[in-house]
């Protein structure tokens, strides 16, 4: 009796690790020409639209030269055409700096204390005097109208400052260097409920205090103004930002800006420290570019100052709704992402549905019975491919759009380089996550047309509806909070300032959620979809 040795194939066992599975899926992806074309189309569409937007904007500012805009455009875009570079603050961000300043030099350390008894809206001089017999409607006080005391490096617009002030409806605030903002006493100011304000300078440090009675003082904040010279300008000021209002906010998108003016009454003005002068000088601080000429006046009667001012001391907010025509953030040229996403969605859908259509899924699952692992491998491959697609597309778009704008002398929104990198990385993440989400939808639905449609309707359409104001603003805001389109906030590059009333719409480059929150919402959708897809893949016959 001899034992028969069973036949063993001389071929070595194939490895069936996860790496092999990834390699198999990657081979499938790279060998389908149409999918590579689809990803290329996504890059071309995103970059092409970015370049087109620069081109269309540059054509609009073709001063004198015969651009496609033609002669008719010059009148309309004369302002953008002649737009000087934006005024920037100490931090490099664009700012507005125009107000009425009643000042004295402060040569060294010292402090100033005032009492504010009223802050009211005035009709701006720009409106002219009404015809006889016509009564103008009362003007509303802007929520961020401000009056108080300020210590400013010099009278150059954009120079460093620290100020403590009463505001229209945001209580006492201490603000510094345009972006800084700290709340003090709440509530409106009135003769019955005045506000005492004090600024103290000690070297580079300026400390703000407020008080309701002039006896009990609370420290609001202390800020360092690096490199403050010995002699600075200090005194009461008043300003009132331009009003912003949209006509209906829905299906029209027209908006208007108008100058406003606010007046404040100061008394109990007292100084201590190094004040070489004895008289106050009133004047408008405003940039010379004429965008915000500024207005105001002051009267001094027996220790009581009445100061009226227009303008604002604040960071600027980008976007067409905020008068920022002609100054686009580099990230705003990534607008084409939503169309490029449609191409990525088509590819990601087919990456799964083609398996069902061709019956390849049976081969795939026979070779790798662990169905969850198959889904994971597919998700990693399509996610990585989409990430690279998004990264390349965004980098090419931002670099070429910036270069093209510079070459044509077209002013861009000044931003630190980190703010320009974040929408590039954000776009790559967005495209990758949406590809994985679409793959999961394709796994659930299995049919190409339905899966593509569902993915586009839940991802791209909410963004479209909110962006173009095709639905009322309230609905649009919610769509961008709860749908996967929340992820578009990853492309936001400019910060949102709560102390500036402006349009923060998708069109202006702002989303209702912070980037990390939108990222979390999108990740939640991806996780949910992958879980459902994994469950269905495991429990349904292929």
């Amino acid at each position: 009796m001899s034992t028969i040795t069973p036949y063993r194939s001389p071929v070595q066992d194939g490895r069936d690790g996860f790496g092999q599975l990834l390699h198999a899926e990657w081979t499938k992806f790279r060998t389908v020409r149409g999918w590579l074309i689809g990803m290329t189309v996504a890059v071309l569409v995103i970059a092409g639209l970015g370049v087109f937007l620069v081109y269309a904007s540059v054509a609009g500012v073709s001063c004198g030269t015969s651009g496609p805009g033609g002669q008719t455009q010059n009148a309309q875009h004369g302002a953008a055409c002649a737009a000087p570079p934006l005024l920037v603050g100490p931090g490099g961000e664009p700012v507005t700096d125009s107000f009425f300043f009643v000042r004295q030099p402060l040569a060294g350390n010292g402090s100033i204390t005032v009492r504010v008894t009223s802050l009211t809206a005035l009709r701006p001089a720009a409106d002219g005097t009404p015809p006889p017999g016509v009564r103008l409607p009362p003007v509303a006080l802007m929520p961020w109208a401000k009056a108080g005391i300020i210590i400013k490096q010099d009278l150059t617009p954009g120079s460093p400052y620290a100020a403590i002030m009463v505001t229209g409806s945001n209580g006492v605030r201490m603000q510094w260097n345009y972006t800084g903002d700290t709340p003090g006493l709440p509530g409106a100011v009135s003769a019955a409920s005045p506000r005492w304000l004090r600024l103290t300078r000690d070297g580079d440090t300026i400390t703000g205090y407020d008080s309701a009675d002039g006896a009990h003082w609370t420290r609001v904040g202390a800020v360092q103004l690096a490199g403050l010279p010995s002699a600075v300008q200090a005194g009461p000021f008043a300003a009132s930002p331009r009003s912003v209002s949209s006509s209906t906010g829905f299906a029209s998108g027209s908006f208007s800006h108008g100058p406003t003016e606010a007046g404040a009454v100061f008394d109990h003005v007292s100084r201590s420290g190094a004040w070489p002068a004895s008289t106050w000088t009133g004047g408008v601080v405003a940039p010379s570019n004429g965008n915000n000429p500024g207005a105001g006046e002051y009267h001094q009667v027996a220790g009581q100052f009445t100061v009226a001012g227009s303008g604002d001391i604040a960071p600027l907010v980008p976007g067409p709704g905020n008068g920022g025509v002609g100054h686009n953030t580099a990230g705003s040229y990534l607008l084409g992402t939503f169309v490029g996403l449609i191409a990525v969605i088509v590819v990601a859908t087919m990456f799964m549905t083609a398996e069902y259509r061709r019956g390849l899924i049976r081969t795939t699952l026979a070779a790798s019975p662990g169905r969850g692992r198959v889904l994971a491998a597919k998700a990693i491959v399509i996610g990585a491919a989409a990430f690279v697609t998004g990264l390349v597309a965004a980098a090419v778009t931002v670099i070429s759009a910036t270069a093209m704008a510079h070459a044509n002398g077209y002013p861009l929104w000044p931003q630190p380089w980190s703010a320009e990198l974040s929408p590039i990385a954000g776009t790559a993440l967005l495209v990758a996550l949406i590809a994985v989400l679409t793959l999961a939808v394709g796994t659930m639905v299995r049919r190409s047309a339905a899966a593509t449609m569902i993915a586009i309707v839940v991802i791209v359409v909410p963004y479209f509806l909110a962006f173009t104001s095709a639905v009322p603003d309230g609905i649009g805001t919610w769509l961008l909070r709860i749908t996967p389109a929340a992820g578009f906030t990853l492309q936001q590059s400019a910060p949102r300032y709560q102390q500036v009333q402006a349009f923060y719409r998708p069109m202006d480059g702002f989303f209702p959620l912070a980037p990390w929150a939108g990222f979390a919402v999108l990740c939640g959708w991806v996780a949910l979809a992958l879980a459902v897809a994994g469950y269905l893949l495991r429990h349904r016959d292929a």
Partner: protein
Amino acid sequence: MSLALSAGRPGHRAWTDTLHAEWTKARTIASTGWLLLAAVVLTVAVSAAAVAATAAAPGLDLARLSLTGVQAAQAVVALLAVLAVSSEYSTGMIRVTLTAMPRRHTVLAAKAALVGGLVLAAGTVAVLASVLAGRLILPGHGFTPAHGYQLLSLGDGPVLRAACGSVLYLALIALLALGIATAARDPAVATGAVLALLYLVPVVAAVVSNQHWQRHLEQISPMTAGLYVQATVGVRALPLTPWQGLGVLGLWAAGALILGGLVLRFRDA
């Protein structure tokens, strides 16, 4: 037999037979009915939601507001049209279809007539229900004659035009999608291409700072120009008249159908 069949009025017979065959296909697929139902429900639901979410303000276009749902339903209508063609390619049915009816343009014409007819029928129901919803909901939101708003009525010329135009808009979107799907064949590619074409231009037009370009972009956009037909307020300020706008969409649909017809004619199925 075959001689007898081809004897009597062959052209007419072939057309009705093809149409009948397409009707049988459409009728016996569950998705057709569901998609038509979804289009109607979506139109009415989104329109009612938009109306209910709007507070009274001066200068609002009530007809357009009450027909907001058309913008949501167009995606469903496009899907219906894409599936009418692409599913034949997915399953290989197209070869049977073309064997039975070798005149390919007749097949495409029959599909266009059938899909167009179905969408017209569903669109009529959806638009009538949306207008009715607007008529019922709007007065409760302060849109009363006392505030200068007329009750929404189809007896009003512009409102009637907006309603009829919206039905035609949906049908033309279906024909546009049908043409693109015939040219692209793959359902995912066709769906993506249709929606990209619809959504691309309005977003670009919204951010182009050059108003000259903006106006031209809106004039050629199938969606923006097509929806001009819904406008009842500020009609004079539009870059095109309402019917001209719908005509732009009609040109897009005709172009897509011609492209689809050429691809169908000259490429192997």
